[in-house]
Protein backbone atom coordinates (compact mmCIF):
# COMPACT_ATOMS: atom_id res chain seq x y z
CA UNK A 1 0.00 0.00 0.00
CA UNK A 2 1.15 3.48 -0.89
CA UNK A 3 2.49 5.16 2.31
CA UNK A 4 0.48 8.31 1.58
CA UNK A 5 -2.70 6.28 1.42
CA UNK A 6 -1.67 4.53 4.61
CA UNK A 7 -1.42 7.85 6.43
CA UNK A 8 -4.63 9.12 4.89
CA UNK A 9 -6.53 5.97 5.85
CA UNK A 10 -5.23 6.21 9.40
CA UNK A 11 -6.23 9.86 9.72
CA UNK A 12 -9.68 9.19 8.23
CA UNK A 13 -10.10 6.30 10.60
CA UNK A 14 -9.22 8.34 13.67
CA UNK A 15 -11.57 11.18 12.70
CA UNK A 16 -14.37 8.76 12.02
CA UNK A 17 -13.77 6.79 15.20
CA UNK A 18 -14.00 10.00 17.24
CA UNK A 19 -17.53 10.67 15.97
CA UNK A 20 -18.72 7.09 16.30
CA UNK A 21 -17.32 6.96 19.81
CA UNK A 22 -19.40 9.94 20.93
CA UNK A 23 -22.60 8.25 19.82
CA UNK A 24 -21.62 4.77 20.98
CA UNK A 25 -20.51 5.84 24.44
CA UNK A 26 -23.91 7.39 25.15
CA UNK A 27 -25.61 4.23 23.93
CA UNK A 28 -23.48 2.02 26.14
CA UNK A 29 -23.84 4.32 29.16
CA UNK A 30 -27.63 4.24 28.88
CA UNK A 31 -27.60 0.49 28.47
CA UNK A 32 -25.37 0.01 31.48
CA UNK A 33 -27.71 1.90 33.77
CA UNK A 34 -31.15 1.22 32.30
CA UNK A 35 -30.63 -2.12 30.52
CA UNK A 36 -32.39 -0.61 27.53
CA UNK A 37 -30.90 -0.40 24.07
CA UNK A 38 -32.08 2.99 22.91
CA UNK A 39 -32.71 2.70 19.17
CA UNK A 40 -33.92 6.32 19.19
CA UNK A 41 -30.26 7.22 19.76
CA UNK A 42 -29.88 7.32 15.98
CA UNK A 43 -32.60 9.98 15.90
CA UNK A 44 -30.78 12.07 18.52
CA UNK A 45 -27.67 11.92 16.37
CA UNK A 46 -29.45 12.94 13.19
CA UNK A 47 -31.47 15.75 14.78
CA UNK A 48 -28.32 17.00 16.50
CA UNK A 49 -26.70 17.17 13.08
CA UNK A 50 -29.63 18.96 11.44
CA UNK A 51 -30.01 21.46 14.25
CA UNK A 52 -26.29 22.20 14.27
CA UNK A 53 -26.22 22.64 10.50
CA UNK A 54 -29.17 25.06 10.65
CA UNK A 55 -27.66 27.09 13.45
CA UNK A 56 -24.23 27.23 11.81
CA UNK A 57 -25.77 28.28 8.51
CA UNK A 58 -27.75 31.04 10.19
CA UNK A 59 -24.66 32.25 12.07
CA UNK A 60 -22.66 32.23 8.82
CA UNK A 61 -25.46 34.04 7.00
CA UNK A 62 -26.02 36.66 9.70
CA UNK A 63 -22.77 38.51 9.19
CA UNK A 64 -21.53 37.62 12.70
CA UNK A 65 -18.06 36.60 13.71
CA UNK A 66 -17.60 33.25 11.90
CA UNK A 67 -15.89 31.75 14.95
CA UNK A 68 -19.30 31.85 16.61
CA UNK A 69 -20.13 28.76 14.56
CA UNK A 70 -18.18 26.67 17.10
CA UNK A 71 -20.30 27.60 20.10
CA UNK A 72 -23.28 27.22 17.76
CA UNK A 73 -22.39 23.55 17.29
CA UNK A 74 -22.25 22.99 21.02
CA UNK A 75 -25.40 24.95 21.78
CA UNK A 76 -27.35 23.00 19.16
CA UNK A 77 -26.09 19.69 20.51
CA UNK A 78 -26.82 20.55 24.12
CA UNK A 79 -30.29 21.88 23.42
CA UNK A 80 -31.34 18.99 21.20
CA UNK A 81 -29.96 16.34 23.52
CA UNK A 82 -31.43 17.85 26.67
CA UNK A 83 -34.89 18.43 25.22
CA UNK A 84 -35.23 15.12 23.37
CA UNK A 85 -33.62 13.16 26.19
CA UNK A 86 -35.96 14.61 28.81
CA UNK A 87 -39.07 14.27 26.68
CA UNK A 88 -38.40 10.65 25.72
CA UNK A 89 -37.25 9.47 29.13
CA UNK A 90 -39.95 11.22 31.12
CA UNK A 91 -42.75 10.86 28.60
CA UNK A 92 -42.09 7.39 27.31
CA UNK A 93 -39.44 5.16 28.82
CA UNK A 94 -40.63 5.83 32.35
CA UNK A 95 -43.77 3.83 31.58
CA UNK A 96 -42.03 0.74 30.29
CA UNK A 97 -39.28 -0.04 32.78
CA UNK A 98 -41.29 -2.98 34.11
CA UNK A 99 -42.14 -4.37 30.67
CA UNK A 100 -40.54 -7.21 28.75
CA UNK A 101 -37.23 -6.56 27.06
CA UNK A 102 -38.73 -7.03 23.60
CA UNK A 103 -41.37 -4.39 24.26
CA UNK A 104 -38.76 -1.94 25.54
CA UNK A 105 -36.82 -2.46 22.33
CA UNK A 106 -39.98 -1.90 20.29
CA UNK A 107 -40.82 1.30 22.15
CA UNK A 108 -37.45 2.89 21.43
CA UNK A 109 -37.79 1.67 17.85
CA UNK A 110 -41.17 3.42 17.59
CA UNK A 111 -39.59 6.59 19.00
CA UNK A 112 -36.90 6.29 16.32
CA UNK A 113 -39.54 6.05 13.57
CA UNK A 114 -41.26 9.15 14.93
CA UNK A 115 -37.98 11.10 15.06
CA UNK A 116 -37.26 10.18 11.42
CA UNK A 117 -40.38 12.04 10.34
CA UNK A 118 -39.65 14.91 12.69
CA UNK A 119 -36.50 15.42 10.61
CA UNK A 120 -38.48 15.22 7.38
CA UNK A 121 -41.06 17.71 8.64
CA UNK A 122 -38.62 20.25 10.02
CA UNK A 123 -35.76 20.04 7.54
CA UNK A 124 -37.30 18.51 4.44
CA UNK A 125 -35.61 16.06 2.13
CA UNK A 126 -32.77 18.17 0.74
CA UNK A 127 -29.29 17.57 2.17
CA UNK A 128 -27.61 20.22 4.32
CA UNK A 129 -23.95 21.14 4.46
CA UNK A 130 -22.46 23.63 6.91
CA UNK A 131 -18.73 23.58 6.28
CA UNK A 132 -17.66 26.87 7.88
CA UNK A 133 -16.03 25.34 10.97
CA UNK A 134 -13.82 23.12 8.80
CA UNK A 135 -12.68 26.04 6.66
CA UNK A 136 -11.94 28.21 9.66
CA UNK A 137 -9.57 25.73 11.24
CA UNK A 138 -7.64 25.22 8.04
CA UNK A 139 -5.28 22.33 7.47
CA UNK A 140 -2.29 20.83 9.22
CA UNK A 141 0.46 18.73 7.70
CA UNK A 142 0.74 15.19 8.96
CA UNK A 143 3.86 13.45 7.66
CA UNK A 144 3.86 15.76 4.69
CA UNK A 145 0.19 15.31 3.90
CA UNK A 146 -2.17 18.24 4.41
CA UNK A 147 -5.28 17.27 6.33
CA UNK A 148 -8.03 19.44 7.77
CA UNK A 149 -7.47 20.32 11.40
CA UNK A 150 -11.14 20.05 12.26
CA UNK A 151 -11.22 16.31 11.71
CA UNK A 152 -7.77 15.35 12.87
CA UNK A 153 -7.30 17.67 15.84
CA UNK A 154 -10.65 18.96 17.04
CA UNK A 155 -12.72 15.78 16.76
CA UNK A 156 -10.23 13.41 18.44
CA UNK A 157 -9.56 16.05 21.09
CA UNK A 158 -13.25 16.34 21.92
CA UNK A 159 -13.64 12.55 21.94
CA UNK A 160 -10.70 12.24 24.34
CA UNK A 161 -12.07 15.05 26.46
CA UNK A 162 -15.43 13.26 26.68
CA UNK A 163 -13.75 9.98 27.55
CA UNK A 164 -11.58 11.49 30.27
CA UNK A 165 -14.40 13.71 31.50
CA UNK A 166 -16.80 10.80 31.67
CA UNK A 167 -14.30 8.69 33.57
CA UNK A 168 -13.73 11.50 36.01
CA UNK A 169 -17.45 12.15 36.35
CA UNK A 170 -18.24 8.48 36.99
CA UNK A 171 -15.48 8.04 39.56
CA UNK A 172 -15.23 11.32 41.38
CA UNK A 173 -18.62 13.02 41.48
CA UNK A 174 -21.58 11.97 43.57
CA UNK A 175 -23.93 11.64 40.59
CA UNK A 176 -21.30 9.68 38.74
CA UNK A 177 -20.70 7.31 41.61
CA UNK A 178 -24.41 6.73 41.93
CA UNK A 179 -24.61 5.94 38.21
CA UNK A 180 -21.72 3.50 38.55
CA UNK A 181 -23.40 1.87 41.53
CA UNK A 182 -26.64 1.36 39.61
CA UNK A 183 -24.72 -0.02 36.61
CA UNK A 184 -22.89 -2.55 38.73
CA UNK A 185 -25.72 -3.76 40.93
CA UNK A 186 -29.11 -2.21 40.45
CA UNK A 187 -30.97 -4.15 43.16
CA UNK A 188 -28.49 -3.32 45.89
CA UNK A 189 -28.28 0.30 44.77
CA UNK A 190 -32.03 0.67 45.04
CA UNK A 191 -32.23 -1.06 48.42
CA UNK A 192 -29.67 1.35 49.87
CA UNK A 193 -31.94 4.19 48.89
CA UNK A 194 -30.70 5.41 45.54
CA UNK A 195 -33.45 7.10 43.57
CA UNK A 196 -33.30 5.02 40.40
CA UNK A 197 -35.70 7.32 38.54
CA UNK A 198 -33.43 10.31 38.93
CA UNK A 199 -30.39 8.30 37.95
CA UNK A 200 -32.20 7.07 34.84
CA UNK A 201 -33.14 10.61 33.82
CA UNK A 202 -29.63 11.98 34.34
CA UNK A 203 -28.03 9.10 32.47
CA UNK A 204 -30.45 9.25 29.60
CA UNK A 205 -30.00 13.00 29.15
CA UNK A 206 -26.19 12.65 29.24
CA UNK A 207 -26.41 9.90 26.64
CA UNK A 208 -28.75 11.93 24.46
CA UNK A 209 -26.51 15.01 24.63
CA UNK A 210 -23.50 12.91 23.62
CA UNK A 211 -25.40 11.49 20.65
CA UNK A 212 -26.52 14.90 19.42
CA UNK A 213 -23.00 16.23 20.05
CA UNK A 214 -21.78 13.48 17.74
CA UNK A 215 -24.31 14.60 15.15
CA UNK A 216 -23.48 18.28 15.58
CA UNK A 217 -19.74 17.66 15.18
CA UNK A 218 -20.39 15.48 12.15
CA UNK A 219 -22.45 18.17 10.42
CA UNK A 220 -19.54 20.26 9.08
CA UNK A 221 -17.98 17.27 7.29
CA UNK A 222 -20.99 15.15 6.35
CA UNK A 223 -23.91 15.75 4.05
CA UNK A 224 -26.85 15.81 6.44
CA UNK A 225 -29.74 13.93 4.93
CA UNK A 226 -32.48 11.46 5.76
CA UNK A 227 -31.33 7.98 6.71
CA UNK A 228 -28.33 9.27 8.64
CA UNK A 229 -29.76 8.10 11.94
CA UNK A 230 -30.35 4.52 10.86
CA UNK A 231 -26.78 4.10 9.68
CA UNK A 232 -25.39 5.58 12.85
CA UNK A 233 -27.49 3.55 15.28
CA UNK A 234 -26.46 0.30 13.62
CA UNK A 235 -22.83 1.32 13.43
CA UNK A 236 -22.67 2.46 17.03
CA UNK A 237 -24.43 -0.73 18.04
CA UNK A 238 -21.65 -2.60 16.24
CA UNK A 239 -19.12 -0.62 18.29
CA UNK A 240 -20.96 -1.19 21.54
CA UNK A 241 -21.46 -4.91 20.86
CA UNK A 242 -17.80 -5.34 19.90
CA UNK A 243 -16.70 -3.68 23.12
CA UNK A 244 -19.33 -5.37 25.27
CA UNK A 245 -22.57 -3.69 26.33
CA UNK A 246 -22.00 -1.18 29.12
CA UNK A 247 -18.26 -0.74 28.57
CA UNK A 248 -17.30 2.96 28.41
CA UNK A 249 -13.53 2.73 27.85
CA UNK A 250 -13.99 -0.37 25.72
CA UNK A 251 -16.28 1.60 23.41
CA UNK A 252 -13.38 3.99 22.65
CA UNK A 253 -11.08 1.16 21.60
CA UNK A 254 -13.80 -0.59 19.62
CA UNK A 255 -14.66 2.68 17.87
CA UNK A 256 -11.01 3.07 16.89
CA UNK A 257 -10.83 -0.53 15.69
CA UNK A 258 -13.96 -0.22 13.61
CA UNK A 259 -13.17 3.31 12.41
CA UNK A 260 -9.72 2.27 11.18
CA UNK A 261 -11.08 -0.95 9.70
CA UNK A 262 -13.60 0.99 7.75
CA UNK A 263 -11.28 3.71 6.50
CA UNK A 264 -8.71 1.17 5.34
CA UNK A 265 -11.46 -0.67 3.52
CA UNK A 266 -12.42 2.56 1.77
CA UNK A 267 -8.94 2.72 0.23
CA UNK A 268 -8.32 -1.00 -0.27
CA UNK A 269 -11.67 -2.62 -1.06
CA UNK A 270 -14.10 0.26 -1.63
CA UNK A 271 -17.02 -2.03 -2.53
CA UNK A 272 -16.90 -3.59 0.91
CA UNK A 273 -16.45 -0.56 3.15
CA UNK A 274 -19.92 -0.88 4.65
CA UNK A 275 -19.29 -4.54 5.41
CA UNK A 276 -16.07 -4.14 7.37
CA UNK A 277 -17.49 -2.80 10.67
CA UNK A 278 -20.00 -5.64 10.79
CA UNK A 279 -17.41 -8.23 9.84
CA UNK A 280 -15.24 -7.02 12.71
CA UNK A 281 -18.23 -7.24 15.03
CA UNK A 282 -19.24 -10.71 13.86
CA UNK A 283 -15.68 -12.02 14.18
CA UNK A 284 -15.34 -10.62 17.69
CA UNK A 285 -18.72 -11.98 18.75
CA UNK A 286 -17.96 -15.43 17.36
CA UNK A 287 -14.92 -15.63 19.61
CA UNK A 288 -16.27 -13.65 22.57
CA UNK A 289 -20.08 -13.54 22.54
CA UNK A 290 -20.14 -10.99 25.37
CA UNK A 291 -17.82 -8.56 23.55
CA UNK A 292 -14.13 -7.77 23.99
CA UNK A 293 -14.21 -6.13 27.40
CA UNK A 294 -17.29 -7.47 29.17
CA UNK A 295 -17.32 -10.43 31.53
CA UNK A 296 -19.84 -13.14 30.71
CA UNK A 297 -22.53 -13.55 33.34
CA UNK A 298 -24.36 -16.74 34.12
CA UNK A 299 -27.88 -16.90 35.45
CA UNK A 300 -28.18 -18.38 38.92
CA UNK A 301 -30.22 -21.55 38.99
Amino acid at each position, binding site marked *: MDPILLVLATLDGIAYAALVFLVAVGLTLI*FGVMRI*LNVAHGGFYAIGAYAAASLVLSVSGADLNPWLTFPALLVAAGAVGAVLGLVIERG*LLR*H*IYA*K*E*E*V*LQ*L*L*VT*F*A*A*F*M*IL*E*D*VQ*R*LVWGVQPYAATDPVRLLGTVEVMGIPYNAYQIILLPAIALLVLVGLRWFLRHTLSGKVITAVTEDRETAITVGIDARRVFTITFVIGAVLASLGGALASPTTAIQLGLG*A*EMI*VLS*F*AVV*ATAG*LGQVEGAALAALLIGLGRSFAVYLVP*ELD*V*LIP*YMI*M*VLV*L*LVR*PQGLFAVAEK*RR*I
Partner: protein
Amino acid sequence: MRFVRFLPAVLVLAVALLPLAVPWLKIILTVALAKGLAVLGVVVLLRAGQVSFGHAMFFAASAYSAAFLMQGFGGMDLAVLLLAGMLCSGAMGAVIGLFVVRYRYIFFGMLNLAFSMVLYALLEKMFHVTGGSDGMAVGRPTYFGFELERTAFETALFYSSLVLAGAACWCVHRFLRSPLGEALSAIRTNETRLEYLGISARRVLLIAYVLSAALAGLGGAVIAVNQGVVTPDLGYWIRSGEFVFIAILGGAGNVLGAFAGALVYELVRFYAAAMAADVWQMILGFVLLGIILFASRGFVGLYQDLVAVAAPDRPGREREPKR
Protein backbone atom coordinates in the same frame (compact mmCIF):
# COMPACT_ATOMS: atom_id res chain seq x y z
CA MET B 1 -73.87 -10.71 18.53
CA ARG B 2 -73.23 -14.35 17.65
CA PHE B 3 -72.09 -13.40 14.17
CA VAL B 4 -68.85 -12.15 15.71
CA ARG B 5 -67.52 -15.66 15.82
CA PHE B 6 -67.86 -15.95 12.07
CA LEU B 7 -66.04 -12.69 11.54
CA PRO B 8 -62.79 -14.28 10.34
CA ALA B 9 -64.61 -16.43 7.77
CA VAL B 10 -66.60 -13.42 6.56
CA LEU B 11 -63.42 -11.39 6.24
CA VAL B 12 -61.63 -14.05 4.22
CA LEU B 13 -64.63 -14.33 1.92
CA ALA B 14 -64.79 -10.56 1.56
CA VAL B 15 -61.11 -10.40 0.63
CA ALA B 16 -61.58 -13.20 -1.89
CA LEU B 17 -64.59 -11.53 -3.54
CA LEU B 18 -63.48 -7.90 -3.34
CA PRO B 19 -61.40 -7.95 -6.55
CA LEU B 20 -64.45 -9.11 -8.49
CA ALA B 21 -66.27 -5.94 -7.46
CA VAL B 22 -63.28 -3.58 -7.46
CA PRO B 23 -60.74 -5.03 -9.92
CA TRP B 24 -57.98 -2.47 -9.34
CA LEU B 25 -57.87 -3.42 -5.66
CA LYS B 26 -56.31 -6.77 -6.35
CA ILE B 27 -52.81 -5.37 -6.78
CA ILE B 28 -53.02 -3.76 -3.36
CA LEU B 29 -54.50 -6.88 -1.83
CA THR B 30 -51.72 -8.98 -3.35
CA VAL B 31 -49.18 -6.61 -1.81
CA ALA B 32 -50.95 -7.04 1.53
CA LEU B 33 -50.85 -10.81 1.23
CA ALA B 34 -47.16 -10.76 0.29
CA LYS B 35 -46.37 -8.58 3.26
CA GLY B 36 -48.60 -10.77 5.41
CA LEU B 37 -46.38 -13.75 4.55
CA ALA B 38 -43.30 -11.84 5.70
CA VAL B 39 -45.15 -10.71 8.82
CA LEU B 40 -46.01 -14.33 9.50
CA GLY B 41 -42.27 -14.96 9.54
CA VAL B 42 -41.83 -12.22 12.14
CA VAL B 43 -44.72 -13.71 14.13
CA VAL B 44 -42.98 -17.10 14.26
CA LEU B 45 -39.96 -15.48 15.88
CA LEU B 46 -42.11 -13.41 18.24
CA ARG B 47 -43.34 -16.75 19.61
CA ALA B 48 -39.84 -17.20 20.98
CA GLY B 49 -39.91 -13.64 22.33
CA GLN B 50 -37.45 -12.50 19.67
CA VAL B 51 -37.95 -9.57 17.35
CA SER B 52 -36.04 -9.21 14.12
CA PHE B 53 -35.48 -5.66 12.87
CA GLY B 54 -34.03 -6.96 9.64
CA HIS B 55 -36.47 -9.40 8.13
CA ALA B 56 -36.88 -7.35 4.99
CA MET B 57 -33.49 -8.71 3.93
CA PHE B 58 -35.11 -12.08 3.22
CA PHE B 59 -37.98 -10.35 1.46
CA ALA B 60 -35.47 -8.51 -0.74
CA ALA B 61 -33.16 -11.48 -1.28
CA SER B 62 -36.00 -13.54 -2.67
CA ALA B 63 -37.37 -10.67 -4.77
CA TYR B 64 -33.93 -10.15 -6.33
CA SER B 65 -33.52 -13.87 -6.94
CA ALA B 66 -36.80 -13.73 -8.91
CA ALA B 67 -35.45 -10.76 -10.88
CA PHE B 68 -32.15 -12.53 -11.62
CA LEU B 69 -33.96 -15.68 -12.73
CA MET B 70 -36.28 -13.75 -15.02
CA GLN B 71 -33.36 -11.82 -16.54
CA GLY B 72 -30.97 -14.73 -16.70
CA PHE B 73 -33.34 -17.10 -18.43
CA GLY B 74 -35.39 -14.51 -20.29
CA GLY B 75 -38.57 -15.71 -18.61
CA MET B 76 -39.54 -18.29 -16.05
CA ASP B 77 -42.57 -19.88 -14.51
CA LEU B 78 -44.21 -18.35 -11.44
CA ALA B 79 -44.01 -21.66 -9.57
CA VAL B 80 -40.24 -21.78 -10.09
CA LEU B 81 -39.83 -18.17 -8.97
CA LEU B 82 -41.78 -18.75 -5.78
CA LEU B 83 -39.91 -21.94 -4.99
CA ALA B 84 -36.51 -20.48 -5.84
CA GLY B 85 -37.27 -17.38 -3.76
CA MET B 86 -38.16 -19.48 -0.75
CA LEU B 87 -35.08 -21.66 -1.16
CA CYS B 88 -32.80 -18.69 -1.61
CA SER B 89 -34.05 -16.83 1.45
CA GLY B 90 -34.30 -20.05 3.44
CA ALA B 91 -30.64 -20.82 2.68
CA MET B 92 -29.65 -17.28 3.56
CA GLY B 93 -31.69 -17.65 6.76
CA ALA B 94 -29.78 -20.83 7.60
CA VAL B 95 -26.40 -19.09 7.23
CA ILE B 96 -27.33 -15.89 9.08
CA GLY B 97 -29.38 -17.93 11.53
CA LEU B 98 -26.36 -20.00 12.57
CA PHE B 99 -24.93 -16.76 13.89
CA VAL B 100 -27.92 -14.84 15.24
CA VAL B 101 -29.60 -17.73 17.12
CA ARG B 102 -26.73 -17.53 19.59
CA TYR B 103 -28.22 -14.23 20.78
CA ARG B 104 -31.45 -13.03 22.34
CA TYR B 105 -33.46 -9.83 22.58
CA ILE B 106 -31.32 -6.73 21.94
CA PHE B 107 -28.54 -8.59 20.17
CA PHE B 108 -30.94 -10.70 18.15
CA GLY B 109 -32.90 -7.67 16.99
CA MET B 110 -29.90 -5.47 16.26
CA LEU B 111 -27.78 -8.14 14.57
CA ASN B 112 -30.66 -8.78 12.21
CA LEU B 113 -30.83 -5.06 11.55
CA ALA B 114 -27.08 -4.98 10.90
CA PHE B 115 -27.24 -7.83 8.40
CA SER B 116 -30.12 -6.18 6.59
CA MET B 117 -28.23 -2.89 6.38
CA VAL B 118 -25.32 -4.73 4.80
CA LEU B 119 -27.56 -6.35 2.21
CA TYR B 120 -29.24 -3.02 1.48
CA ALA B 121 -25.88 -1.30 1.03
CA LEU B 122 -24.65 -4.09 -1.26
CA LEU B 123 -27.80 -3.98 -3.39
CA GLU B 124 -27.35 -0.26 -3.77
CA LYS B 125 -23.61 -0.31 -4.40
CA MET B 126 -23.26 -3.26 -6.78
CA PHE B 127 -24.67 -1.11 -9.54
CA HIS B 128 -23.47 -3.30 -12.42
CA VAL B 129 -25.15 -6.40 -10.97
CA THR B 130 -28.27 -5.09 -9.25
CA GLY B 131 -28.92 -1.85 -11.09
CA GLY B 132 -28.23 0.15 -7.93
CA SER B 133 -31.08 2.21 -6.51
CA ASP B 134 -33.00 2.00 -9.80
CA GLY B 135 -33.32 -1.72 -9.25
CA MET B 136 -34.16 -4.35 -11.84
CA ALA B 137 -37.22 -4.98 -13.93
CA VAL B 138 -39.05 -8.24 -13.47
CA GLY B 139 -41.03 -9.36 -16.50
CA ARG B 140 -44.24 -11.34 -16.36
CA PRO B 141 -43.56 -15.02 -15.74
CA THR B 142 -45.66 -17.82 -17.17
CA TYR B 143 -48.36 -19.11 -14.86
CA PHE B 144 -47.91 -22.86 -14.43
CA GLY B 145 -47.03 -23.11 -18.09
CA PHE B 146 -49.63 -20.66 -19.40
CA GLU B 147 -48.88 -17.29 -20.93
CA LEU B 148 -51.43 -14.92 -19.41
CA GLU B 149 -52.49 -11.37 -20.26
CA ARG B 150 -51.72 -8.69 -17.72
CA THR B 151 -55.10 -8.56 -15.98
CA ALA B 152 -55.56 -12.31 -16.10
CA PHE B 153 -52.10 -12.75 -14.60
CA GLU B 154 -52.82 -10.25 -11.86
CA THR B 155 -56.02 -12.06 -10.99
CA ALA B 156 -54.27 -15.42 -11.03
CA LEU B 157 -51.45 -14.04 -8.87
CA PHE B 158 -53.90 -12.63 -6.36
CA TYR B 159 -55.81 -15.88 -5.93
CA SER B 160 -52.58 -17.88 -5.84
CA SER B 161 -51.31 -15.59 -3.08
CA LEU B 162 -54.55 -16.07 -1.21
CA VAL B 163 -54.15 -19.83 -1.41
CA LEU B 164 -50.48 -19.59 -0.41
CA ALA B 165 -51.39 -17.38 2.52
CA GLY B 166 -54.02 -19.88 3.63
CA ALA B 167 -51.59 -22.77 3.31
CA ALA B 168 -48.89 -20.86 5.16
CA CYS B 169 -51.33 -20.01 7.94
CA TRP B 170 -52.31 -23.64 8.33
CA CYS B 171 -48.71 -24.87 8.32
CA VAL B 172 -47.52 -22.25 10.81
CA HIS B 173 -50.55 -22.84 13.01
CA ARG B 174 -49.80 -26.58 13.13
CA PHE B 175 -46.11 -25.93 13.60
CA LEU B 176 -46.67 -23.64 16.57
CA ARG B 177 -48.76 -26.31 18.26
CA SER B 178 -46.30 -29.11 17.61
CA PRO B 179 -43.63 -29.97 20.18
CA LEU B 180 -41.19 -27.83 18.19
CA GLY B 181 -43.52 -24.84 18.30
CA GLU B 182 -44.15 -25.30 22.01
CA ALA B 183 -40.40 -25.56 22.54
CA LEU B 184 -40.11 -22.29 20.61
CA SER B 185 -42.36 -20.45 23.04
CA ALA B 186 -40.46 -22.14 25.86
CA ILE B 187 -37.41 -20.16 24.71
CA ARG B 188 -39.25 -17.07 25.85
CA THR B 189 -40.38 -18.47 29.17
CA ASN B 190 -37.52 -20.67 30.38
CA GLU B 191 -34.55 -21.54 28.27
CA THR B 192 -32.77 -23.20 31.18
CA ARG B 193 -35.50 -25.79 31.59
CA LEU B 194 -35.57 -26.34 27.85
CA GLU B 195 -31.88 -27.25 27.87
CA TYR B 196 -32.52 -29.48 30.87
CA LEU B 197 -35.11 -31.38 28.85
CA GLY B 198 -32.32 -32.24 26.44
CA ILE B 199 -33.57 -29.76 23.82
CA SER B 200 -31.17 -27.38 22.12
CA ALA B 201 -32.74 -23.92 22.26
CA ARG B 202 -30.43 -22.77 19.48
CA ARG B 203 -31.47 -25.56 17.18
CA VAL B 204 -35.16 -24.91 17.80
CA LEU B 205 -34.65 -21.21 17.15
CA LEU B 206 -32.63 -21.96 14.02
CA ILE B 207 -35.43 -24.10 12.58
CA ALA B 208 -37.91 -21.32 13.33
CA TYR B 209 -35.53 -18.76 11.84
CA VAL B 210 -35.17 -20.65 8.56
CA LEU B 211 -38.94 -21.11 8.41
CA SER B 212 -39.47 -17.42 9.03
CA ALA B 213 -36.88 -16.46 6.41
CA ALA B 214 -38.54 -18.76 3.89
CA LEU B 215 -41.94 -17.21 4.61
CA ALA B 216 -40.51 -13.73 4.10
CA GLY B 217 -38.94 -15.07 0.91
CA LEU B 218 -42.25 -16.35 -0.39
CA GLY B 219 -43.71 -12.90 0.18
CA GLY B 220 -40.73 -11.28 -1.52
CA ALA B 221 -41.12 -13.41 -4.66
CA VAL B 222 -44.83 -12.54 -4.85
CA ILE B 223 -44.15 -8.83 -4.50
CA ALA B 224 -41.38 -8.89 -7.14
CA VAL B 225 -43.75 -10.39 -9.71
CA ASN B 226 -46.65 -8.20 -8.60
CA GLN B 227 -44.69 -4.94 -8.88
CA GLY B 228 -42.67 -5.91 -11.93
CA VAL B 229 -39.63 -4.19 -10.46
CA VAL B 230 -37.32 -4.77 -7.51
CA THR B 231 -35.36 -2.04 -5.72
CA PRO B 232 -33.06 -2.01 -2.68
CA ASP B 233 -35.92 -0.37 -0.77
CA LEU B 234 -37.46 -3.83 -0.41
CA GLY B 235 -34.70 -4.61 2.06
CA TYR B 236 -34.46 -1.24 3.81
CA TRP B 237 -34.86 -1.13 7.58
CA ILE B 238 -38.09 0.83 7.23
CA ARG B 239 -39.61 -2.19 5.53
CA SER B 240 -38.42 -4.45 8.34
CA GLY B 241 -39.90 -2.02 10.82
CA GLU B 242 -43.16 -2.17 8.90
CA PHE B 243 -43.26 -5.98 9.27
CA VAL B 244 -42.68 -5.74 12.99
CA PHE B 245 -45.31 -3.01 13.19
CA ILE B 246 -47.90 -5.13 11.39
CA ALA B 247 -47.11 -8.17 13.53
CA ILE B 248 -47.75 -6.15 16.68
CA LEU B 249 -50.80 -4.46 15.14
CA GLY B 250 -52.35 -7.80 14.21
CA GLY B 251 -51.66 -9.27 17.62
CA ALA B 252 -48.17 -10.41 18.52
CA GLY B 253 -47.74 -14.10 18.05
CA ASN B 254 -50.97 -14.70 16.17
CA VAL B 255 -51.12 -16.33 12.76
CA LEU B 256 -54.34 -14.83 11.37
CA GLY B 257 -53.48 -11.50 12.95
CA ALA B 258 -50.51 -11.24 10.58
CA PHE B 259 -52.82 -11.11 7.56
CA ALA B 260 -55.56 -9.09 9.24
CA GLY B 261 -52.88 -6.58 10.20
CA ALA B 262 -51.35 -6.56 6.73
CA LEU B 263 -54.70 -5.99 4.99
CA VAL B 264 -55.73 -3.15 7.27
CA TYR B 265 -52.26 -1.64 7.07
CA GLU B 266 -52.07 -1.77 3.29
CA LEU B 267 -55.58 -0.39 2.75
CA VAL B 268 -55.08 2.44 5.21
CA ARG B 269 -51.71 3.18 3.70
CA PHE B 270 -53.19 3.27 0.22
CA TYR B 271 -55.73 5.90 1.21
CA ALA B 272 -53.82 7.78 3.87
CA ALA B 273 -50.22 7.69 2.68
CA ALA B 274 -50.90 10.10 -0.16
CA MET B 275 -52.35 12.61 2.28
CA ALA B 276 -49.78 12.00 4.99
CA ALA B 277 -46.66 10.91 3.15
CA ASP B 278 -44.39 13.08 5.27
CA VAL B 279 -45.69 11.85 8.58
CA TRP B 280 -46.48 8.24 7.71
CA GLN B 281 -43.69 6.78 9.84
CA MET B 282 -44.58 9.13 12.63
CA ILE B 283 -48.14 7.82 12.58
CA LEU B 284 -46.81 4.24 12.59
CA GLY B 285 -44.59 5.08 15.51
CA PHE B 286 -47.41 6.57 17.55
CA VAL B 287 -49.80 3.71 16.75
CA LEU B 288 -47.09 1.22 17.70
CA LEU B 289 -46.57 3.02 21.01
CA GLY B 290 -50.31 3.08 21.57
CA ILE B 291 -50.63 -0.66 20.99
CA ILE B 292 -47.70 -1.54 23.21
CA LEU B 293 -48.76 0.75 26.03
CA PHE B 294 -52.52 0.26 25.93
CA ALA B 295 -53.59 -2.74 23.81
CA SER B 296 -50.70 -5.16 23.62
CA ARG B 297 -52.84 -7.88 22.05
CA GLY B 298 -53.55 -6.02 18.81
CA PHE B 299 -56.49 -6.80 16.49
CA VAL B 300 -56.68 -10.40 17.59
CA GLY B 301 -57.01 -9.29 21.18
CA LEU B 302 -59.87 -6.97 20.21
CA TYR B 303 -61.54 -9.83 18.36
CA GLN B 304 -61.14 -12.21 21.30
CA ASP B 305 -62.67 -9.62 23.59
CA LEU B 306 -65.60 -9.29 21.18
CA VAL B 307 -66.11 -13.05 21.20
CA ALA B 308 -65.96 -13.07 24.97
CA VAL B 309 -68.64 -10.35 25.11
CA ALA B 310 -70.81 -12.11 22.55
CA ALA B 311 -70.68 -15.52 24.18
CA PRO B 312 -69.37 -15.34 27.74
CA ASP B 313 -69.85 -19.08 28.23
CA ARG B 314 -67.56 -19.86 25.33
CA PRO B 315 -64.34 -17.99 25.76
CA GLY B 316 -61.92 -17.53 22.87
CA ARG B 317 -60.30 -20.78 21.93
CA GLU B 318 -56.87 -19.51 22.60
CA ARG B 319 -55.95 -18.36 26.02
CA GLU B 320 -54.04 -15.19 26.06
CA PRO B 321 -50.74 -15.93 27.78
CA LYS B 322 -49.97 -13.82 30.79
CA ARG B 323 -47.18 -11.38 30.68
